[in-house]
């Protein structure tokens, strides 16, 4: 049975657009009108047709390419769930509206009800680890204000997973195997094919900056010293920048463009301490945090931590982030007291990661913008 909408009636034939194709029907019944839904097999009118289709902005017209992307998206979602189920992970769903949305300095939360929409499900999932769960994953919507671009949407889907009693190394293996399970040996980004067969290449942040930007970063230098080093490497940079802004000025100017040229996936590991976020510092090397970022064809796909489990250090970092937010005139969100309490009670050594599901679908379809793999993109709301 094929059903669809009559999009044209010409020369004794009707063109009916079904989900998969445009079908031409010879000698259509006289009752058929443009805009009606009809059954191509029985030639019955199902309904509609009172209003002629109006402009494209009002009517959702999915192109065959877009429909194909949505079909891949649904398949990827199924295979992600299968991937984690086969490895003994428990799927969880945590609240989307929370009192403490996360203090990460460069993320803006969206207010909702008596709290905020989550920017990631991280805090809640760590409390579940403290509560006794070992291997958990979640696929959920996350919300970030003021992020709109070819690789960013204010509302997007995240895959987040954790392994208690385990390390960031197992998370790295999961990541490589998941992307390989979804994309096969090659991910697609536009016309480019990027090899994703495990194991992936690895490079430390310091080596990446040294190799592509000619900047040596230690992790304990001052912001002014880092700025001077970036400028000495011939990169245009303003004075008075914070340490992280100086770092990312060099990163965006030299490292990201070089990562985009690679024809294979890569894990960028060992982040300098000022960019530790919620990662644990390396044993015997306090300037380095156990964190990696997965890049595929220049697309930043995932961020992983060997989780910080020290309650005192975590609370200290939250307070510092609140202070930076206050200094920069940005909203200061409350500290998640229940997370701190859970850390005090004890979180096992754990690894965790957040991976952009929409970006994973981009790599599975070759789409070059995030809106292309969403059922209704931001601009189509």
């Amino acid at each position, binding site marked *: 049975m094929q059903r669809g909408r009559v999009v044209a009636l010409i020369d004794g034939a009707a063109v009916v657009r079904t989900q998969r194709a445009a079908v031409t029907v010879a000698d259509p019944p006289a009752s058929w009108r443009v805009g009606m839904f009809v059954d191509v097999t029985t030639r019955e009118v199902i309904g509609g047709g009172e209003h002629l289709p109006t402009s494209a902005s009002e009517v959702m017209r999915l192109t065959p390419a877009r429909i194909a992307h949505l079909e891949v998206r649904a398949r990827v979602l199924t295979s992600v769930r299968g991937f984690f189920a086969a490895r003994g992970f428990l799927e969880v769903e945590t609240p989307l509206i929370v009192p403490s949305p996360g203090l*990460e300095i*460069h993320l803006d939360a969206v207010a909702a009800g008596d709290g905020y929409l989550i920017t990631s499900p991280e805090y809640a999932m760590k409390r579940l680890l403290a509560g006794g769960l070992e291997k958990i994953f979640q696929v959920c919507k996350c919300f970030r204000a*003021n*992020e*709109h*671009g*070819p*690789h*960013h949407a204010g509302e997007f889907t995240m895959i987040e997973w954790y392994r208690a009693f385990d390390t960031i190394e197992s998370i790295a293996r999961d990541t490589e195997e998941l992307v390989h399970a979804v994309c096969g040996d090659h991910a697609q980004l536009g016309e480019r094919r990027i090899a994703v067969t495990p194991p992936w290449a690895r490079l430390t942040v310091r080596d990446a900056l040294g190799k592509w930007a000619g900047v040596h970063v230690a992790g304990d230098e001052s912001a002014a010293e880092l700025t001077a080093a970036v400028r000495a490497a011939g990169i*245009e940079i*303003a004075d008075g*920048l914070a340490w*992280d*802004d100086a*770092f*990312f*000025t060099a*990163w*965006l*100017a030299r490292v*990201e463009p070089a990562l985009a040229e690679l024809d294979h996936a890569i894990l960028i590991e060992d982040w300098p301490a000022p*960019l530790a*976020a919620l990662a644990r510092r390396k044993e015997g090397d306090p300037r380095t945090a156990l964190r990696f*970022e997965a890049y595929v064809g220049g697309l*930043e796909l995932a*961020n992983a931590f060997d989780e910080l489990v020290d309650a005192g250090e975590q609370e200290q970092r939250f307070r510092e982030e609140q202070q930076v937010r206050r200094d*920069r005139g940005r909203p200061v969100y409350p500290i998640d007291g229940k997370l701190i309490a859970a850390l005090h009670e004890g979180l096992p050594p754990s690894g965790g990661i957040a991976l952009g599901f929409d970006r994973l679908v981009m790599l599975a379809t070759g789409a070059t913008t995030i809106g292309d793999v969403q059922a209704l993109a931001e601009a189509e709301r």
Partner: protein
Amino acid sequence: MYDTSDIRKGLKVLMDGNPYNVIEFQFVKPGKGAAFTRTKFKNLLTGAVVERNIRSGEKLEPANVETRDMQFLYKEGGDLVFMDQTSYEQVTIAADLIGDAHDLMKDNLACTVVFFNERPVDVTLPTFVQLEITASEPGVKGDTSGNVQKPATVETGATVSVPLFIRVGDTIKIDTRTHEYVERVNKT
């Protein structure tokens, strides 16, 4: 002042004293880092293109740049005199600013002039102009293919290569970007 949310194609900004036009921009945000707008700017004076990553919160200075429709009136030595089609104000512009195409300019030609701090900095001619041939050797009979060309002088004094079948009195269409003959135009 502009901030990153104002960035769009065609925005005119001042950087290091030079006026720039935004020709491309893209939102980028490295994980755990600030949002930047990766922006390509074209220098309105030199045409040079530069790329800069503008951090969210950074300010951009608006450039006092204005685009006006003006009509070419006449030449005066090495200068050309234009008139604003709205205000009827007259402005003298050095021929250098127009470049090679200045010898294709006929009276009353409509052009676009870009002003920076009230000073003209760029003149854009229409892509095509129609001019009459005032002098040219007669072509060799029989060759009408247009593959062989000869020099011809047009009414503004410029020399243009034209096919052999073009005669004095013909009007031809010329590409102002390349000085190339495009086609013969039937006189109206």
